[in-house]
């Protein structure tokens, strides 16, 4: 079998083209957001929000509304609870986040065990992009496109917020507004990514591409470009891998992302060693 048939064969199935397109879109938007999250130090917050949406997904399933609405509501609820608890105790933010997201996740597990089958549970936790419905695929693409557009349009303000919020405030930019805007964008991205990689692995999509790019460049525009390339390539190869090896798509995508991170990491290690040796 030559390489062209290897590439084209899966594309004759509508579910595969759909899966590849959705994965690539999710990969791109997560990569863009990941650049801001890792610079802001919000990795744990992303993890917290993604876990906290579980009860929202299950409740949406029970009521019969689109699961993304339920997920979005619980994402905002998690952010709200974290904010309230943090500003009223002396407990540090990471501990507050840990308590809040595990509580909501546990509540989701309880709900899920009473209502849906274990197969559906697997799909929520680990994604099932090969079985995505047309409506869900459309929603994911629109949400991903909209978030990517907004983040790129306001990238300079978002970057300033991550870099020097005090300066931002001192020239009259409302950092509270930017803060919540970034949180809402993060929440939308997570709900849009659920079907592709699932609740557990979405955080990888939101940390790894940005981290890989951060290792390779000192310029933010380049960082964005590298992160998107790394992530989209991982998504596409991941989708093919899952087709040919009959393994989890989300797992494949994230694993390939991690391998690319490892390559970048090894490269930077080698690079510094070489420059020390040359000097």
């Amino acid at each position, binding site marked *: 079998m030559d390489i062209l048939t290897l590439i084209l064969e899966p594309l004759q199935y509508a579910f595969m083209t759909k899966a590849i397109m959705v994965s690539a879109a999710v990969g791109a938007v997560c990569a863009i957001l990941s650049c801001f999250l890792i610079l802001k130090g919000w990795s744990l917050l992303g993890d917290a929000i993604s876990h906290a949406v579980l009860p929202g997904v299950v409740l949406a399933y029970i009521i019969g509304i689109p699961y993304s609405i339920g997920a979005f509501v619980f994402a905002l609820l998690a952010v709200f609870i974290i904010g309230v608890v943090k500003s009223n105790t002396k407990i540090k933010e990471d501990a507050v986040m840990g308590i809040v997201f595990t509580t909501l996740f546990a509540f989701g597990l309880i709900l899920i065990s009473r209502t849906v089958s274990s197969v559906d549970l697997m799909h929520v936790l680990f994604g099932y992009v090969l079985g995505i419905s047309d409506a869900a695929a459309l929603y994911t693409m629109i949400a991903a496109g909209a978030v990517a557009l907004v983040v790129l349009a306001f990238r300079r*303000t978002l970057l*300033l917020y991550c870099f020097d919020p*005090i*300066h931002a405030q*001192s020239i*009259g*930019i409302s950092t509270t507004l930017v803060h919540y805007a970034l949180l809402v964008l993060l929440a939308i991205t997570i709900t849009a990514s659920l079907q592709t990689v699932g609740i557990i692995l979405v955080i990888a999509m939101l940390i790894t591409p940005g981290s890989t790019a951060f290792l390779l460049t*000192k310029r*933010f525009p380049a960082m964005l470009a590298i992160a998107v390339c790394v992530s989209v390539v991982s998504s596409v190869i991941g989708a093919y891998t899952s087709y040919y090896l009959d393994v989890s798509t989300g797992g494949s995508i994230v694993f390939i992302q991690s391998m690319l991170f490892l390559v970048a990491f090894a490269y930077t290690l080698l690079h510094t060693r070489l420059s020390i040796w040359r000097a």
Partner: protein
Amino acid sequence: MIDKTKHAIEIHNVSVRYRDFTALRDASISIPHGTFSGVIGMNGAGKSTLFKVIMGLVEPSHGTVQVCERSTHDAQRLGCVAYVPQNETVDWDFPVSVHDVVMMGRYGVQNIFRTPSEEDVAKVSQALHRVGMHEYKDRQIGELSGGQRKRVFVARALAQGADILLLDEPFAGIDAKSEKALTDLLLTLKEEGKTIVLSTHELTSLSEYCDHVALVKKTVIAYGPTHEVFTRDLVSQTFDGMVHRIRFAQ
């Protein structure tokens, strides 16, 4: 032109409370235009809070604040006050160049997408020349020395067109030569009419460049010309007596 008879900063009876902690109580200070003021006090004395009040970052629970004869909100909108952060609070690995950081000084006057105009680029370039950092404009900020890092943020303040420069511990972690270069730069800016306010622990050289001194200990104990305020009695009161090795004006 700047009216030197008016005050750049006027704070009257300001108190700031954080939850169950009073950071400043009944503090008043009037800083004239075109002066170079040093703010000194122990850690936690309220120096940072005083800066935040001037920048409009904290709302006083009591008292009034005027910056350039305006409310802090208007002063923010017009970019009157620029803040130069402490070196240790900046993430020097951040993927931004010297030029990028100075351009952030222009964000206040740009459109919501912060697209740089030709004027913005010109002002950034001018500011970088002014502090002698133009040849480093494409460097990532972590690739600079401590003194150069400070000058980048001063350039950002100039690009912003601020009348008042607030510098938080600018001499922490930089060598004596860079400190001299920085104070020389700030002194020329003062001659051009800027109002310089810096907080410092560097009491030994303070009187060489500051024409005014503010002593802070949960309030402004005293503020005025250096030779009147920077005295053994008053400084000793500010630092609970720990001042034996400093040479004073009197």
